[in-house]
């Protein structure tokens, strides 16, 4: 019977209660407070839209992070398309000041390529294991580790300890 394939999904509210805070933290860290708020709302709406057709309820947290990661990538592509070269960067980190402990560092994080940024934030802000970071990025665990390594090296160059 087709019925045996139906997955028992918890109320979407449970996902929000358990994961919304970390999703929000991840997105604010990755793209800043303003874009983070937008990406967060887009993530929730996209997740709710797709939720009933999920075939597997084993890793709902991972599924939500995958959606949030895609929002980071989408935003980076949009920004790249609309980017206008400017002589002086407009007050780097200005809008980030209220939400992050270290302006220089987080400004540098947000200059990383999106995959490295996403990987670094997931690994060190949210303490996610490499296997989960890899699942979110849709790559191998080694690739996730390489993204983190490259991101860290660049951060160390840009923000001397």
């Amino acid at each position, binding site marked *: 019977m087709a019925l045996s394939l139906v997955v028992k999904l918890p109320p979407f*509210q*449970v996902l929000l209660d358990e994961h919304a*805070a970390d999703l929000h*933290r991840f997105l604010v860290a990755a793209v800043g407070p303003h874009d983070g708020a937008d990406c967060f*709302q887009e993530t929730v709406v996209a997740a709710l839209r797709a939720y*009933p057709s999920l075939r597997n309820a084993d890793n709902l947290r991972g599924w939500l992070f995958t959606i949030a990661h895609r929002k980071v990538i989408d935003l980076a*592509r949009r920004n790249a398309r609309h980017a206008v070269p400017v002589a002086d960067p407009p007050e780097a980190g200005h809008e980030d000041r209220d939400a992050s402990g270290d302006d220089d*560092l987080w400004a540098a994080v947000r200059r990383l390529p999106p995959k490295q940024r996403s990987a670094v934030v997931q690994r060190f*802000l949210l303490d996610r294991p490499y296997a989960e970071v890899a699942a979110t990025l849709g790559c191998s665990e080694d690739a996730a580790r390489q993204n983190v390594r490259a991101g860290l090296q660049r951060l160390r160059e840009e923000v001397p300890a």
Partner: protein
Amino acid sequence: MNRPEDSFDHAELGRDPARTDGTAPEDRTDDVDDLARTNGLAAHLAAGPRADRAELDRLVAAAIARADADDLVDVAWTVTDTPIGPLTLSATPVGVVRIAFGDEDDVLDELATQVSPRVVHLPSRLDDLRRQLDEYFAGRRDRFEVPLDKRLVKGFRARALEALAAHVGYGQTASYREVAELVGNPGATRAVGTAMATNPIPIVVPCHRVVRSGGALGNYGGGPEIKAWLLRLEGASILL
């Protein structure tokens, strides 16, 4: 294909593209994390953006409002406080689908299974019901005027609840047998009892008005004390 954000992976990944089983050598695990720990980056990053609870609640509510505008909220719920304790109210786009005594999560699990897993906190959809309940509990309302979604009850039970709602008004009571007669099946008192006990929308669909022959209260989903309280509120004559 010129996707700058992917260029790193294509360049570096070629070294070991086959490894997907998570069996990376230990030294490389430590290598990457240690790099961050030794120079203090890990601690800095771990102390990054803090979630502000009020801001988060506001963002979640805004996201749910957006989802609702896209018809993505299949079940909206909220909890309201009443003189008989908290009630969990829920509605589909069709109407009120379930009222549960208390504020336990079980009812959300049931709704996720029986209606749709798209169950989220959206109090605005229940504003009318909440206002009418306030008026009812204040003794200023003797009937409810909200659309109902009756999908959780079928067949004989649905007919028994319909008959009750149509014929047994505020301040009145009926026996299980009388409701059975209203449905045209006088022998089905036990089935009427089951229909009342499993009424998904108590108070609004007034199963508290169905009592034992002779006037004893009988059972109630919210407990016999609440049944008595509701009947007293309505000024019904009851034994006890």
